[in-house]
Every structure is written in structure tokens, then in C-alpha cells.
């Protein structure tokens, strides 16, 4: 977008302030390139489409075959999305990851989400990246470091209460001291029998009688799983 002058920016801010939520959503849509793609106003190479999601080839990919999977509804980041959209996108991503292994003979994939500009998010529309990977492609070369035990504990202590709050669970103190925290009074989650989030039954049909086709491509999944040996 071209830079706005101070006056233009103020006028725009004023306009936005006075808009109804519906008008705002409409403006967002007009500004968002992915909403334009979803509306068919910008052409794209579609690999998956259903009522709520669209998967297309990224034209500026990390690697050839990089797929962008997006909700048709405009959401900027994952926390804004309804649960059923999140679960749907991730299961579709499973099939698209499998498609990359088979069609491109990729030997690995990454599923990747960036929430917020600090995390490298460049689009205003939530995107789930599915990136085909090969040995030595030098993508996302993250190194793991050893975390100091104390630090590990402090992360645990600071994250757990908020996580439980978000999950709608009560944090209970352990009845016996646990081995990992012999001397501290750190609260431990009571083991949950009831899980707070159950996958919707409608979306998880019982597995079909396994009708795996014994074609030669089928070994690829095993090959990939067995590379770990």
C-alpha cells in the first residue's frame, strides 16, 4: 500500500472509528489479498477447497510446492478463530502434507503458523503453511539448546495457571510431592479424567475398514517414518 499523508491517515482513522462491525469486516475484506483470492477476484492455483477452507499454491514460496491453507472467513490470527475452523484446517493440513510427500516425493514437511508480526506473520489473513522439505534444503534451520532446570521450572510455574484458566480447569495441589519437584510447593495438575476439549464426533468418523491400496507409493510414509532409525 502507498504511504498515506498525515491528513489522509487521520481521515481514514476517523472513518474507521465510525464504521459498524459489518462495514469494518467488509473493509478488511477489500484490503486483504487472500480474501480477494477466496472471492475469486485474484486467480490462484487451488489444491483444496471446501465450504470453509481454501488451499492454494504459494506464488512466493519457501520451497517449490509450498501450500497456503486458509479459512474462507477473514481472521488475522489463530486465537480469533472458532474451534471448529481450527480443527478443520489442521486435519485438512494432514491430507495436504500427505499430498506433498506423494506428489513431490518430499521427504518431510513443516506445518507452520505465525501469529503476529513478531512471529514473522506477513499476511493479515490467518495462514497455515504446509512446506515440503528435503534433506539439506536449509529451511527453518532451528537449533535446540539445553534449558537450565531452574528456567524450565519457572516457565512451568508462570504458564500453567494461565493455561488452566484458558482451559477452564482448576489447578490443584498434588497430594504427594512429585519427583520432579521434590522441595517446592509448586502446584501440579491433577490428572484429568474428563478432557475439556473433545473433538467433535461429527468430524471424526470411525475409521473405514482399512482399504489401504498396496501401490508402490504407499511405502513412502513408512520410509519417512523409518528414516529415524
Amino acid at each position, binding site marked *: 500500500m502507498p504511504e498515506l499523508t498525515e491528513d489522509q491517515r487521520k481521515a481514514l482513522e476517523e472513518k474507521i472509528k465510525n464504521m459498524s462491525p459489518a462495514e469494518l469486516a467488509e473493509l478488511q475484506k477489500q484490503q486483504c489479498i487472500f480474501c480477494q483470492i477466496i472471492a475469486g477476484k485474484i486467480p490462484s492455483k487451488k*489444491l483444496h477447497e471446501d465450504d470453509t477452507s481454501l488451499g492454494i499454491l504459494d*506464488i*512466493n*514460496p*519457501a520451497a*517449490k510446492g509450498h501450500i497456503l491453507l486458509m479459512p474462507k472467513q477473514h481472521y488475522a490470527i*489463530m*486465537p480469533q*478463530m472458532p474451534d471448529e475452523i*481450527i*480443527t478443520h484446517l489442521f*486435519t485438512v493440513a*494432514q491430507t495436504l*502434507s*500427505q499430498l506433498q*510427500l*506423494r*506428489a*513431490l516425493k518430499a521427504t*518431510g514437511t513443516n*506445518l*507452520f*503458523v*505465525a*501469529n*503476529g508480526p*513478531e*512471529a514473522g506473520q506477513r499476511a493479515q489473513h490467518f495462514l497455515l503453511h504446509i512446506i515440503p*522439505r528435503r*534433506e539439506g534444503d536449509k*529451511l*527453518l*534451520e*532451528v*537449533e535446540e539448546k539445553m*534449558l537450565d532446570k531452574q*528456567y524450565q521450572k519457572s516457565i*512451568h510455574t508462570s*504458564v500453567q495457571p494461565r*493455561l488452566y484458566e484458558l*482451559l477452564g480447569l482448576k489447578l490443584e495441589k498434588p497430594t504427594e510431592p*512429585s519427583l*520432579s519437584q521434590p522441595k517446592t510447593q509448586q502446584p501440579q*495438575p491433577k*490428572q*484429568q*479424567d474428563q*478432557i475439556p*476439549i473433545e*473433538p467433535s464426533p461429527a*468430524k471424526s468418523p470411525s*475409521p473405514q475398514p482399512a482399504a489401504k*491400496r*498396496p501401490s508402490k507409493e*504407499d511405502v513412502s*510414509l*513408512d520410509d519417512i*517414518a523409518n528414516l*529415524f*532409525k
Partner: protein
Amino acid sequence: MKCDYCEIIEQPNHTEILYEDKDLFIIVKDMVITPGQITIVPKAHHPIVEMLPHPIMEKCALLANKVSMALFDIMGGGTNILIQNGLAGGQKVPHFAIEIIPRKENDTLPLQWPSKQLGEADLESTYSLYQEELHREKKQPDQTSSSTTDAKLLESSEKPSEKKQESKKEKIKTDSYLLKSVNRLP
């Protein structure tokens, strides 16, 4: 070689566990990309994304969102949700997991990539590889509805990996999961 995550699941006392239920753990690992990184690990041993049953994926995804929200609230900044799938995908442990990684501006983590500028010809050739594969999947006689072909293909691979759970621990080293199950089929 024993699976590191199965070990944690068997001996949870040696790890920092944030949450546990019948299907999965949420843990603070000691080997991380950046401090504050949280990992979601299903209890059942599914090596890669393609072998993970959809309901477990759904649950992992929802919890990843909650963990991400918790990290937003506590650490500020943004988050990445990363699944490393297969050795080439950077996966270290042969057991599916989701990493939630807190990000700060200018933290220089290599979780970005330079965008390639692909020409129309390159895009077209990649697209046709995908189309061929999708077409081939559709033509499979045991697949009925064309719109859900992919999903069905994947579902059919769930069953084998679930069967596999029963005897997984001893066999992880050498066995080919799907092949074994395929052999059992008529």
C-alpha cells in the same frame, strides 16, 4: 532406540508437565529452540503427521491455540506453531509433536524464509504434479466420494497406526507400520 517421548510418557516425573489427560501431554522440554517453548505430545506413538488420527490432531490443534494464547498473555509478542514432520522436516523424535514457540521482535530465530520468486512455468509444473496425484487418488476404486478423497485416504491409514499401538514399543526400531498392516488386509 527408545522413543524419547514414549519415555517421558512412561516416566513423567522427570519432565515438567503442564497438563495431562488420557490422550496427550503438554510439557516444557529441556531442549528447546527458545525459552518458553511448549510442546504438545500425544501419548500414542504416531511417528508422523500422516499417521496421526484426525481426532488427536484436532485436539492437539485446539490445545496448541490455548497454549499460544497463554504465551501471548504471559510473554507478549507473537507465537509460532510448528510441526516438524519427518527427518527432512527437522523432526528429532520419531513421535508426532506440536511446538508452540514464543516470539519477540528481532529475536533472530531462523523461523522465517526468503520467498522464492517462481516463474509461471515453475508454478505450473508443480501444480500439475499435485493435480496428477489428486487425480490418481480420485481414480482409486475403493474411494467413493471425490470431494473427500484425500480425507478418506488418510483415514484409511489411521487404522493401521492404531492397530500398531498394541505392540509398538518393541517394534519401533525395525518395523514398517503401514506395510505390516497392509499385509494383514485381504
